[in-house]
């Protein structure tokens, strides 16, 4: 048990540390990415269903597998779609600006 507690405490600090400095722009993608990661409950759902015997347990387990899968795939796909929008504007470096932008006017 103390091993698991150690892991827990260390993970708390890592969790605090990795997101301590994040710009406002990335708040939502980060939330969404973290959301996908807690879909790891799918691992737990597979493990319990994989050894379930009674009909009730199997049903509940499968429901958990289904829901967790929706969480995982939906979470990662939606995050990717959000981040796709940032392409060309990464790290604050504008790609289209100045002269190029002005020429398109009036079209």
């Amino acid at each position, binding site marked *: 048990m103390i091993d698991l507690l150690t892991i827990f405490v260390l993970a708390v600090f890592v969790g605090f540390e990795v997101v301590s400095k994040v710009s406002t722009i990335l708040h939502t993608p980060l939330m969404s990415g*973290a*959301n*996908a990661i*807690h879909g790891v409950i799918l691992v737990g759902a597979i493990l319990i269903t*994989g050894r379930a015997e009674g009909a009730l347990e199997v049903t509940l387990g499968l429901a958990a597998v289904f829901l967790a899968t929706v969480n995982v795939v939906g979470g*990662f796909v939606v995050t990717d779609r959000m981040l796709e929008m940032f392409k060309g504007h990464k790290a604050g470096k504008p790609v289209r600006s100045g002269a190029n932008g002005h020429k398109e006017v009036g079209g």
Partner: protein
Amino acid sequence: MSPTWVQLAYLVAALCFVLALKGLSTPRYARAGNLLGAAGMALAVVTAYVHGAVRNGLLIVLAVAAGVVVGIPAARSVKMTAIPQMVALFNGVGGAAAALVALTEFLAVPHGSVLFQLFTVLTVLIGSVSFSGSVVTFLKLQEIMTTRPVLLPAGQLLGVGAAAVSALLALSVVLTGSGVLLVLLALAGLALGVLFVLPVGGADVPIAISLLNAFTGLAVAASGYVLANTLLIVAGTLVGASGTILTRLMAQAMGRPLTNILFGAFKATTATAATDEQRTVRAGTVDDVAIMLGYAHSVLVVPGYGLAVAQGQHAARELAQVLEQRGVTVHYGIHPVAGRMPGHMNVLLAEADVPYEHLKELDDVNPGIGSVDVVLVVGANDVVNPGARDEPSSPIYGMPIFDVDRAKAVVFMKRSMRPGFAGVDNSLLYNPKTTMLFGDAKESLTKLLAAVKHV
């Protein structure tokens, strides 16, 4: 204990998750981070299946397939404007899955150690709260139910009551190991989640989602103790911890303490609407506004959710370019919570190829706002509401705003006189400096574009 190769695979997956979160915090590596997270997840899931699916293998594959069939199209087809509620929904099903996992394990092993029962109880309770809370935030953002804070009579009492009942049930489950009581606990958790989110209104809802996201992380971590699985503990804790920090950061961006956001609505009484004398609104025509814009020296565009809904970002960019050709300086004022999620406007304008350096934040804009000739408010409302600055009775009091009422003139593009997402009246509408331009943001912008060319 699982075999070494399984442990190692879980370790690699956990590392992927850490790096994913790290990557997601920097613009340059955000997308790569997300993909790395997905890769780690795939590794973990395949490992769990190969090692753990002794029985029901085919059924598990079918359930995963069903989840993929539901999840991917939902995530792909959702409109950019509706993404926050989609995230809320995905978060909710994750919470429900965690609760179900603990419940199932409890049914299989009814009389474990006290610690096992304690973590089972925690998983079920937090998972249920997260599920029902997320569903309510979804309903709010989807505008299926009102976006305003919902204050039940004696709502606070009900909340405390539900919390007390939950705690009592949790204790009795730990002591008795009763499955029936555990199901009752799940129900109490569902009620608690609803009561928790109902009073949160308007622009604060994304912050509630972020907090519920952290909750689900904790539920997953607790389930890791139930199953003695280190990966679940590490990943769940990571999300719980980073989600908590993120929630605080988001609250800071709103300029308010978290407790105020979650429980502020309890305090907000019906003190507003006292000064409802005959206030007049000045509506302008497209040509009036075109002249104002065309002969201005500097223009500030403040976009909001209305621009996103109308998909008017391209029209806004074209209008800005025409104005720039006339020698007008055009900047965009981007409020941290404009739209329905932080960063919403950056995403939207980036899509329309608005140069990054034209996007200005609150602190860049407000000091010099007195010299701005025309502020064009496009589909924004709460982020320019002077009440947030001047009226302590306002529910959004304390939120930083663009002080557009201090600019020389304001053009307010709006669909109707309806109040904004937070449901708060905006005195800026009645300001003598303000000209209203009613209509859909995209249509109005397109008309303006044509009109400005002929000024």
